[in-house]
């Protein structure tokens, strides 16, 4: 699920951070730039380490020094075929949407929900549809009462990666974020309804 990636970038450290030790200041800037953002290599989860920082030149007209920094980040990047435990978030007639808390754009399209199944309007929530798996004459409702294990089938990235200024979970970005298509293997962690 997670791996380390090494990046190199030019980082501008605003003057108000210069009272801090250099490494701390650079880390703060990196966090603002990368944390919780989706890059081509995955979702940046944490700044792991700063390998080197050089430069510190102040460009004309600017009060802030710029450093060339080589650093390592922890990224969330599952591979196709990986099985991940997630929670149910919502569902509609196209399929399910699952969440990991820190990442919410996991989609299970209808064809990949265990068959035979049926989709019905959710009695508790008028806007949603509810999926029910029918197995050996028992019905299992897919909802948030248990954990759902899914297997990653496909990963797609937004076609035009743009830099967003605001912080926040990527599902707020409205970029058409990473969507995963997966086979859904259900794990019921409590007794089934009879």
């Amino acid at each position, binding site marked *: 699920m*997670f791996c380390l990636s090494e990046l190199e*970038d030019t980082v501008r450290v605003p003057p108000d951070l210069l009272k801090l030790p250099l490494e701390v200041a650079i880390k703060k800037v990196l966090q603002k730039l990368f944390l919780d953002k989706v890059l081509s290599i995955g979702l940046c989860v*944490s700044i792991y380490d700063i390998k080197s920082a050089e430069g510190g030149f102040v460009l004309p007209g600017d009060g802030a020094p710029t450093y060339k920094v080589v650093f390592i980040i922890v990224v*969330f990047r599952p591979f196709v075929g990986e099985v991940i435990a997630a929670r149910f978030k919502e569902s509609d007639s196209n399929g399910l949407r699952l969440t990991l808390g*820190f990442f919410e754009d996991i989609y299970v399209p209808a064809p990949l929900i265990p068959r035979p199944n049926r989709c019905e309007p959710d009695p508790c929530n008028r806007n949603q549809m509810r999926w029910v798996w029918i*197995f050996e004459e028992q019905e299992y409702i897919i909802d948030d009462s248990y954990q759902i294990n899914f297997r990653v089938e496909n990963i797609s990235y937004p076609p035009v990666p743009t830099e967003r200024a605001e912080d926040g979970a990527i599902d707020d970005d409205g970029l058409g974020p990473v969507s995963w298509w997966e086979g859904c*293997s259900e794990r019921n962690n409590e007794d089934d309804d009879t």
Partner: protein
Amino acid sequence: MKNIIVKANAGALTNFEVLDLLNSRGASKDTTRVIASETVSRSEYKVYDYLMETAASTQTRESVTKFSDKCKDFRLAKAEILNIINLRPSSDVELTPILEKPDEREIDIEGILALVQELLPPLPTVEAQKENEQEETENDEQS
């Protein structure tokens, strides 16, 4: 600002290692989270919360290392070993989706499950869970 990716994959991490990293930065279950907020950001805390509900929260470095060492005997791919450590399957039905083409490779499913049981601490949930055997992996034929 264009970033230059020096190395896209500088090493895979188990969930345990990421949790360990966040712990060493001061993340904790303390609800106020004021003390660690200097070193652990809100988005990092979301990852922490997720991981605390998985098998990673009860694992130790020793158990994870020992387990991956012993896995060599079972001829598993690195990705599969990682998956097993992250998910801690306790039954055949949980283990098979992780493996690629298990039938063609003659994998010792029982052996792996026994090793998991022996070396990896149990999952963090408190109440006893009854495994539901009716699990279906979408892309396989129904067995």
